[in-house]
């Protein structure tokens, strides 16, 4: 059984009477501890696919099974719970709460997971330590560099020990040095057994992954195994 199984998934928007097929019949299986890069031109449906996989979006048609369970049959709270426990999102624009410290930002998923304060502080510190920000815990986002902000975001994504990290162009807003640091962290997470799904425009970033799929107009045009043994 695959961790993620998308079966003939369509996402169709209606814009001014015209049909936009953001996802146009996607079939995709992702196993545990895969390291997948999604590439493709702008507007090809990469983010839409990510959101679908992350249980944020629902398909217009098709079947999505997450750990063998039908996602369509889950209610809002169940979806929220899966996002909270199983999935960690990393966004291109970091999306940290500007008024909260790094530590508090990282704690938020734990708050929603109903974890006690003392435990939360411990887990958040550990996650920040894992991304090399031990000494920046009490800084606010505007006191951090772009790379550091993205590391806080990664800490937030992994603090709940989710099995899947979904990163939509995590290096898109960073210089190449910070970008490589971020990729270093993602590689490490992969080695620790996490499943990583990554959207990127850059080939050298995609090279970190073991598998690359290309999207074009909502369709998968290439599915490449680059596993280097």
């Amino acid at each position, binding site marked *: 059984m695959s961790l993620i199984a998308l079966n003939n998934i369509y996402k169709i928007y209606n814009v001014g009477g015209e049909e936009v097929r953001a996802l146009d019949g996607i079939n995709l299986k992702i196993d545990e501890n895969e390291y997948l890069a999604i590439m493709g031109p702008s507007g090809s449906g990469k983010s839409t696919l990510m959101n679908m996989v992350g249980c944020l979006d629902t398909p217009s048609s098709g079947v999505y099974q997450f750990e063998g369970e039908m996602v369509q049959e889950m209610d809002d709270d169940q979806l929220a719970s899966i996002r909270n426990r199983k999935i960690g999102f990393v966004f291109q624009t970091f*999306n940290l709460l500007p008024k909260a410290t790094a530590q508090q930002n990282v704690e938020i*998923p734990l708050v929603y997971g109903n974890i006690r304060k003392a435990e939360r502080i411990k887990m958040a510190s550990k996650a920040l330590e894992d991304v090399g920000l031990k000494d920046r815990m009490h800084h606010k986002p505007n006191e951090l560099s772009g790379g550091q902000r993205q590391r806080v975001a990664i800490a937030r994504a992994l603090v709940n020990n989710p099995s899947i990290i979904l990163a939509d162009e995590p290096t898109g807003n960073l210089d190449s040095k910070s970008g490589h640091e971020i990729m270093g962290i993602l590689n490490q997470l992969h080695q620790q057994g996490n499943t990583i799904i990554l959207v990127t425009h850059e080939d050298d970033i995609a090279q970190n992954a073991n598998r690359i799929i290309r999207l074009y107009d909502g369709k998968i045009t290439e599915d490449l195994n680059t596993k280097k043994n």
Partner: protein
Amino acid sequence: MLLLFENFFISLSAVFANKTRSILTALGIIIGVFSVTMMGTLISGLDKTFESSMSMLGRDILYISRYEWFGDMEWWEVRNRPRMRTEYVQKVKQRSKYALAVAPVMQRGASLSYGEKETRTEIFGTNEDYMKTITANIVEGRFFSQNEDRSGSRVTIIGFGIKEAFFGEKDPIGKYIKIDNEKFRVIGVLEKQGKFLGLFSTDKQAILPIGAYNRVFSKRGWMRLSVKIPEQKIEEGLDEIYSVMRHIRGLKPNQKNDFAINQTKAFEKNYNMLKIAIGGTGTFITLLSLIVGGIGVMNIMFVSVKERTREIGVRKAIGATKGMILGQFLMEAISICLIAGLLGLMISYVFSILLNQVFPSTLDMRLAGFSIFISILVGVISGIIPSYRAANLDPIDALRYE
């Protein structure tokens, strides 16, 4: 439960992040809580004043005079009614079986002096029954006797305030004071009573036998009769005194009364009307400011939800349920209202302490609790729609929101 507290602190920080904006919009709630608590404080203070004043009068006393206390008769109509006369005292006593005491009371302003000390006050001319028609007692000396009244003795019973002003700690009994330059001997002192309805002091007065009063001052002047009747028979007593008075006045059955019998009830009726007026105005101001405040809070909550659309998207992406988002924004609205309510309460508290210098006013704890409850309620009502909107945002749309 954990989440509720968590939410509360998240909300507090959100509220404090926009202090000025939050407080400004919640001004209505501050005013609302202030007016509801002040209204309550005012009414309970009035109640206290009123009750202690009413206890000075006594429910079992009928006050017979030319005019109704809170009547709407024209002054010239009242003026055309015949005066009360001292002879009525005997007539009422003879004819009434309910009257326990009948005292004529004449009243005027006069200047009292003792040595260098001088003060203006009210003096009363009455008979030996007077003490039965008031609730104050004699604390030093005695009241005058019927003989002293008949013989026109120049004796007086002074109020506690006069005693303090003229004699301080010294014994006033047997001393002579001057009332409008006529010498009177002090034979008694009334107990301390305080102000009537917070208006005039009952402790600054002097009581004289009506015999001496008529001789020294004019026989004419305004007079009333105070009639004490049994407390259990007030209705019957009142009816009887009406017919006795009609008989004295020689009124035919078809003629209207040309006198009035007043009771403390008249005060109560008017007082209750005053209370309703205060309560009505207060409630109106309170409701109005709470509505204005509530709309203000609803408005900033809508703004807040809009401004933080992306944040809501992020929160949903990392696992917040609809209920949690709803709770967060609801808590925020409640926090604003609660803080505003507490501010209003603080202002009320300070005000009631200041006011207490001149008027009995203490902030009632139940009222304080009630106003806090109201603040929370306003928070819930004004926060529910914006919070519901926040909770039901589509996470994808929210994340895309610029």
